[in-house]
């Protein structure tokens, strides 16, 4: 009987395995990962304004995605495109294209007839089959709220209101904005009183908020979590950069800033005076400076006290200044994928 039992058991096992094998495997798919983040803007405790530095860790959801159907440089040809004329430029707002490689470029013209997107970066090159995504740029109003939902202190001018500061690395300028509460002129304006709600905040660019009161504020953002690599330009001079990461901190050694080639990444040096430097801005307002040492036996990230700093973390939403020292030229920083 024992043998019979064993046989039956085996049969049952075979049947079970057969059933399991014949059943189609489950298939799953997921949407993009979306994130809702909150960034606190600290108010000042005294009369001295307080600087807040933070990076935006979300991007707008995809407005359009497709595959190039022909090779192109500085443009994307997609014979299957369904967009309308000027869908992604002009009065419809500012959009950019991102490629799987992390390259981004602004859309300057959307041609429905030729089904071509013209880009502002003539070095962008695609071959047929390359995927691309079109997203709308985030703007000052998107981030802080069209009606100042972030709760910054409004005022009649930039001197009285809290300031949003946007550093422009190409020109090494810092643009100043504020939320105007002047009746008939409420909204975001530059310090020269030019409407500024639509000013673009590029991915990877850091923001500064100068708080002049104790109220502070909080910036809530809902959007897509940026996946995959992102290429951000680093210009000669100071660049306020963020990692675009919404969750994971990155070590200095993970930033991809040092590539070994000073034309494609930070230039190493024996000290912070020679090499390009990274100034990490801490939430408490302090900062620390790092450089990439090329001293034999001491290569890697070090701080100004020559302490090995490869494992220093750059937290999500935090930002840092990267000083690209002249006469070195600009390069594209490949922000690592999360």
């Amino acid at each position, binding site marked *: 009987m024992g043998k019979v039992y064993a046989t039956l058991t085996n049969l049952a096992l075979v049947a079970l395995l057969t059933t399991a094998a014949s059943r189609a495997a489950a298939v799953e798919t997921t949407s993009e990962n979306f994130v*809702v983040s909150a960034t606190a803007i600290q108010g000042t405790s005294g009369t001295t304004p307080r600087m807040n530095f933070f990076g935006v860790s979300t991007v707008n959801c995809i407005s359009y995605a497709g595959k190039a159907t022909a090779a192109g440089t500085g443009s994307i040809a997609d014979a299957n495109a369904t967009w309308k004329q000027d869908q992604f430029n002009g009065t419809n707002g500012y959009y950019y294209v991102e490629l799987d490689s992390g390259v981004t470029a602004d859309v300057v013209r959307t041609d429905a007839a030729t089904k071509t997107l013209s880009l502002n970066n003539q070095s962008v090159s695609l071959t047929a089959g390359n995927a691309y995504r079109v997203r709308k740029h985030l703007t000052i109003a998107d981030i802080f709220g069209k009606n100042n939902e972030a709760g910054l202190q409004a005022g009649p001018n930039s001197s009285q209101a809290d300031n949003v500061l946007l550093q422009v690395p190409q020109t090494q300028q810092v643009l100043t904005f504020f939320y105007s509460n002047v009746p008939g002129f409420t909204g975001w304006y530059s310090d020269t009183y030019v409407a500024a709600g639509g000013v673009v905040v590029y991915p990877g660019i850091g923001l500064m908020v100068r708080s002049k009161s104790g109220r502070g504020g909080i910036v809530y953002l809902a959007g897509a979590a940026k996946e995959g690599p992102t290429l951000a330009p680093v210009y000669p001079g100071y660049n306020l950069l963020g990692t675009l990461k919404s969750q994971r901190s990155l070590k200095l050694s993970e930033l991809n800033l040092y590539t070994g080639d000073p034309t494609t990444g930070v230039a190493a040096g024996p000290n912070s005076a020679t090499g390009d430097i990274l100034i990490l801005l801490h939430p408490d307002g302090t900062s620390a400076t790092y450089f990439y040492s090329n001293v034999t036996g001491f290569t890697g990230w070090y701080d100004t006290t020559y302490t090995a700093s490869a494992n220093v973390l750059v937290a999500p939403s935090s930002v840092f200044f990267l000083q690209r020292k002249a006469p070195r030229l600009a390069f594209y920083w490949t922000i690592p994928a999360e």
Partner: protein
Amino acid sequence: MPRPNQEFPFVGRVVAIGHCSGVYTYRGGTPTKRKKCDVNSLAMSKIVKHQKSHRTVGLCASLVALTLLCSGVQNAKAVILAWNPNVETNLAGYKLYYGGASGTYTNTTTLGLVTTSTILGLFSSTTYYFALTAYNTQGQESDFSAEIAYTTPLGTNLPPVLSPPSISAIPTQTINKNLTSSAIPFTVSDPDTLLSLVTVQASAANTTLLPTVTLGGSGANRTVTFAPALEASGSTTITITASDGLNTTNRTFNVTVTASNNAPFFRTLAGPLTVNKESTGFVTGLAMYDPDANTGTFTLTVRAGFGSIVLLTNATSGVTSSQITGNGSGTVQVTARLGAINNTLARTNGLAFTGNLNFVGSDSVTVTINDNGNTGSGGAMSATTVVPVTVVGNSLDTWRTQVFSYADLSDPTKQATVWGDNADPDGDGRDNLFEYAVGLDPNKSEVNQQAVVPSIADVSGVKYSALSFVRRVNEPLLQYVPEVSSDKLTWSSGTGFVQQVRVVPLSTGFETVYVQDLTPVSAQAPRFIRLRIIKP
């Protein structure tokens, strides 16, 4: 009128008298008196001895029926008398007596061994009396039967001559050998005789060629059917004869039996077949016949539009694998004797259809039998039947057939790039399963089509991540699972983590679902949210 030297008992009973309207004039005549049989003492078919005879003579006329034939209400033409036959072995015939007065018969007609007689030339509106005697081979005559009387209707006097029946023309018939003709219609008419009394017969001049000629129908509408002898051919005639008892009419038509090859045909057909996607079903019920199949080989071709065909190769006395080409493909051909083909098709699993990869919808199995010219002149002949096939899939399968070409769907190498659940042919970052789930076009990226949209929910000043997504209504194939996470590594779902806020009907078949994270967003603690779609 001579009298018999003996008298016989007889049975007499009037069964029926037919009537026609009309008035006739009595013409009169000399009556003849005879003694009647005792009606009360005799049964209809009983033989009774007559006591006046010196010997026993079992002979008695039994006038059974007096029938008036008429072809129209005011057109009575004749009186027909009918009676039961006597059973004496030496019976020689009957004598019919009638006249204008009861028991007095002025007219006599001597008849042979018949049981009916037609009396013509009667006057209208006149009562006639009829009686019958029987006589035997010795010349002995029975007593009279019971007398029956009949008054002719008012109208034209009955004519002395009966019109013959007519038969409509039948065109020349040509039929191929081994076939039975259809029922060829013709009509029979008779102006003065009930058609029920008109006898119709048919016969072929060459019974070797046409051994079987069959009549059908009744009354005016008749048919004739004929069947040639096996493999016989040639020409002959068929003659149809119609008789009203007095007159006979013939109608002859030509028949040619040709020696051409007979076409095969399907004796029984298969019903519609329904199978599940990529599953196998069996076409059953097909049987073919060819009148002149003999021992020749036939070619069976089975073709499926969007599937493959497999013929059983081990049916008893069926076709073998060596006789089949293309088995398992969309077109299968067999060359074998018809019996073997039928034996295979008679098996419940003799003819299998399996739908092609991803095919869902209507298809057909086309079955053609070709006799390859067996046997006869004129070349090969064939017959074809089409079996409707319905391949059933789920809603996702059906959707695939709507959005992808069959050429792509049937190509397994395109699963990863075109039609597979996780393929993304339009490169918009959403795979096919996702596009199906939220009602998007997998071949076309839709501008600003945000089927899944993140947002911030504000509940009494507390912020939560939220999501809206488009969902198919009552789609049992899919599970829509909103998930939340604090680190994008561990995702949580279910009522303890996410709550459904509301559902709003969208377009037909779709609805928008709003869900909300149950963990609030706080500074430096982002919340992640996404939609997972599962096809178990």
